């Protein structure tokens, strides 16, 4: 069994607890839904800005405002993905193989090379959890997971949510720690399917399933709100 969209949305929403101002970037239907869900649950975000949306977007300075606002410390949480993510939380949104002659090419780094440094709580999300996506070392660093102490970096990765588990990221150690395993998976499976080493604490809980109220929110207001920007995704939800 694999993760259902509502399960992942609920799991991502949980990561927003306490984050008051959340922004959602391009190509992010699940994170966008999670932000709307977290707000509907009263979990955290009062202010949600969805790139490319009109009704959930209070930017009036054009495309640069997301980046300026992040730099001003006015955005608390953000989501990033990766064609590859490695054990140091480096993310690759560009190419697999040799950069000049890639085996696979992806859209590009978007704002990741910047926002990963500036937004306090960046939640990584990649549904496909295989040794192909979660690698020991990414082929191209769109944005590094950690930086030397002298680099200005108020932000960085907080967690990685996949189709099998949730990892927390320890910035001091520069590595992931298994935080919970989804009900249909196991620590062993996660180990087998992950290309990088990570910490496993003595107790690893099961990621909680969304309750009926949560599912109703997703099927109702969340689905409606995300439809403006991701109509195909909302239709399939």
């Amino acid at each position, binding site marked *: 069994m694999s993760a259902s969209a509502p399960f992942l949305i609920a799991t991502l929403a949980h990561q927003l607890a306490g984050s008051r101002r959340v922004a959602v970037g*391009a*190509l992010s*239907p699940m994170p966008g839904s999670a932000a709307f869900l977290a707000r509907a649950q009263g979990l955290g975000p009062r202010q949600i800005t969805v*790139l*490319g949306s*009109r009704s959930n977007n209070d*930017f*009036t*300075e*054009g*495309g*640069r405002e*997301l*980046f300026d606002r992040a*730099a001003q410390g006015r955005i608390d949480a953000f989501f990033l993905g990766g064609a590859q993510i490695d054990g140091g939380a480096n993310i690759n*949104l*560009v*190419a697999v193989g040799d*950069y*000049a*002659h*890639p*085996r*696979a*090419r*992806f*859209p*590009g*780094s*978007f*704002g*990741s*090379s*910047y*926002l*990963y*440094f*500036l937004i306090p709580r960046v939640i990584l999300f990649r549904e496909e959890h295989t040794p192909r996506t979660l690698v020991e070392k990414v082929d*191209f*660093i*769109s*944005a*590094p997971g950690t*930086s*030397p102490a*002298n*680099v*200005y970096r108020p932000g960085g990765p907080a967690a990685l949510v996949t189709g099998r588990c949730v990892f927390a990221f320890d910035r001091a150690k520069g590595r992931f720690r298994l935080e919970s395993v989804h009900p249909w998976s196991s620590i062993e499976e996660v180990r087998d399917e992950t290309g990088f080493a990570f910490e496993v604490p003595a107790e690893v809980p099961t990621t909680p399933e969304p309750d009926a109220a949560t599912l109703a929110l997703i099927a109702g207001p969340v689905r409606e709100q995300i439809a403006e920007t*991701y*109509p*195909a*995704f909302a239709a399939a939800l």
Partner: protein
Amino acid sequence: MEPLAIDEAVARIAPGMMVALPPEYCGVAMAATRELLHQGTGGLHLLAVPQSGLQADMLIGAGRVATVEAAAITLGEQGPAPRFTAAVKSGTIRMVDATCPAIHAALQASEKGLPFLPLRGILGSDVLAHRGDWRVIDNPFGNDDPIVLLPAIRPDVALFHCEMADSNGNLWIGRRRELATMAHASSMTIATVETLYEGDLFADETLAAGVLPAAYVDAIVHVPRGAWPLAMPGHYERDSAAIAGYVAAAASAGGFAAWLAEHLARDEAA
């Protein structure tokens, strides 16, 4: 300023020029892009501000693009941009990978007549590693504090589609301020507009707040549905079916060639 015919306006884009293009949610001049395909203008340097999609993909597929600088090229929910992806993999275009705020900042440097603007972040990324034109200096106001400097980008043309133009050549862009930055930073601005506004946009302070002044505008073309098949918020939605048709055709070089030939023939007939 008299509106021009679309072929006249687009003819100002010469081979080899650097053309700044807005993101898909922000008024892409698709009708002008089809005209550009007709005119056969090649060797273009596309600057996505900061990302592009269908527009870049068509020009790349038709072999009209030498260089792409972008933070991303994507068709959004319709998936990867097929001809872009193929071109990068086969090395037929020069791809200059950037990150969104770097493109905004480099245009703001040009807007301010500056040789460069600094930007936080980026350090330790391969985006930086592959940019021979970016520099890292030690922040002169700090202490062992490296920071990236981005050279200004001055496009030859800013090309976009927006809400309306008045008879003085002022454009109403609303809160799509990236269009203003593009125009300020570029040597020439060509805009297609959804509607024409009778009167002076500056006569009403409410409208004036969303104006890009005529001082920055070189050519205006009145093209209703000028962003189709992309969206023009407030006027029409993204035509997902039309884009899906393109994606299916453009999956292969041959499919794209057939799509282009059919497209050019249909336009000739029109």
